[in-house]
């Protein structure tokens, strides 16, 4: 079997498991009993089904779902049931039982690629040093920083000592302030990007600009101060709330519907290996 067909088969089987786990009921439908709990014992559950009592033996393969007031089902152990609970009980289809181990398997599989990142970085930077490319000394700093970070990481959770000090210095006194600093760059970049890009070149641009000003001023006290004497529906904060609650929600919902349908299509194409351009140069 060629490599591509093998990949396609494995992809299909993996996707098939998740698809079935979602659409197949957690209990075998024709052997599932629905009713109201009358009594519970370690050996059996007594349900009232269509006016008649029915005993369900408590077995390792039994799955019980209790109906919450919201109408949604909740997986529970038989011992957690109370008289009056509306439940459905039946033998498990096993698909959901395997979900956590399957997820863990893919997490472990994915974590094997973590080494790839470090290897890729090491290759690039060692190449810089070997060939003395411009600013190669930055690559030396990279290796020193990796070594220092690994040593400092050993101090995580330590009670005291120099390792804990190193951990504090690297993560609390260097990394955290630097993260905040990088995040704060956004304020400057947003200002210049807005100044450069927002020009009223058309009617739509004018509308966008107006709503942007309304929302921006409505979010800050100055908007309240500017319009506090006007009727409430003309005050900037109230208008900003309308834009965010009504106009924005409608747009977001529309976009999300489109994106979710698109996500179904992309997922379907990858599952059935119909996707072209990314991994396959010809159809299977």
């Amino acid at each position: 079997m060629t490599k591509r067909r093998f990949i396609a088969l494995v992809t299909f089987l993996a996707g098939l498991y998740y698809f079935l786990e979602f659409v197949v009921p957690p209990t075998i439908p024709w052997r599932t009993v629905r009713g109201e709990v009358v009594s519970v014992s370690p050996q059996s559950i007594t349900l009232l089904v269509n006016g008649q009592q029915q005993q369900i033996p408590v077995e390792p393969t039994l799955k019980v779902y209790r109906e919450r007031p919201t109408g949604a089902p909740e997986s529970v152990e038989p011992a957690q049931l109370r008289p009056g609970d509306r439940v459905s009980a039946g033998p498990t289809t096993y698909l959901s039982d395997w979900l956590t181990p399957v997820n863990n398997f893919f997490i472990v599989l994915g974590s094997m690629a973590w080494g790839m990142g470090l290897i890729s970085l090491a290759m690039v930077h060692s190449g810089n040093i070997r060939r003395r490319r411009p600013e190669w000394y930055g690559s030396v700093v990279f290796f020193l920083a990796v070594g220092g970070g690994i040593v400092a990481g050993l101090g995580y959770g330590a009670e005291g000592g120099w390792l804990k000090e190193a951990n504090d210095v690297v993560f609390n006194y260097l990394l955290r302030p630097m993260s905040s600093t990088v995040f704060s760059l956004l304020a400057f970049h947003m200002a210049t990007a807005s100044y450069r890009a927002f020009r009223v070149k058309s009617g739509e641009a004018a509308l966008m600009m107006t709503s942007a000003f309304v929302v921006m001023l409505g979010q800050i006290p100055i908007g309240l101060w500017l319009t506090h004497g006007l009727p409430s529906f003309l005050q900037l904060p109230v208008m900003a709330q309308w834009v965010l609650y009504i106009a924005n929600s409608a747009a977001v919902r529309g976009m999300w519907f489109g994106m979710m349908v698109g996500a179904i299509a992309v997922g379907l194409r990858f599952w059935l290996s119909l996707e072209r351009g990314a991994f396959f140069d010809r159809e299977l």
Partner: protein
Amino acid sequence: MEHANLQIFIAIVLFSFLILWKIFTARRGRGGFIRRIPGLNEIDEAIGRATEMGRPMIFHPGVGEVQNVGTLAALGVLGHVARKAAQMGSRVIVTTAIPVVVPVAEDIVKQAYTQAGRSELFNSEDIRFLAASGDQLALATANVMEQEKTAAHFFFGMYDYTSLLLTEPGQRTGAIQIAGTDQYFQVPFFIASCDYTVIGEELYAASAYLTREPTMLGSLIGQDYAKIIVLAVIVLGALSTTLLGSQNFFVQLIGVYR
């Protein structure tokens, strides 16, 4: 929702049927029309421009995990960009913060250059894992833009707040920038700082649009049919609730979490 109820199951089956039906219809030669998407049109122009200037391009597939739909769509665009770049003899640098993306991107780009007969132009060091977090990756990518003097920047995939940290420095280098994301709240940042922006589901349509493959076109048309059904449900639901109250027959029929 841990498991599909009847309505969700019907919806999944119906949407999947529509998409697969149109895919197989398109494969038999009955394709369809896609409206113009300016951002995607300009990708080839940008690649040509970078080639003329003799400078490399940067492709950034976002900060999402490889199983994220946006990342998968971005990798589809990467395949197209790599193929065009290989045909023109140009260089593509891929930067990412997700280690799993490195071998996938490497495979895509290497294949593209090999098929174009330019395998000597492929350099595995051009597929770079630069940092583990988005903000560090953005700064490192900005550094690469300045060092390599890139002429075209492509930002496709899932982005968080670091989008502007990537595109603003990129603006200053004078490169042409094309971005596409399904993250609704990053779109304004891309619009403000990039030359062309692909919004929301247009990213998912990118593979179809660029390759004009019947499979992709059919999938796109199937999606549109599914959206029409969703629209019809919304309109009927709104009308029925307005005219008949919130517990009417239609709402009971559609009912969620039951």
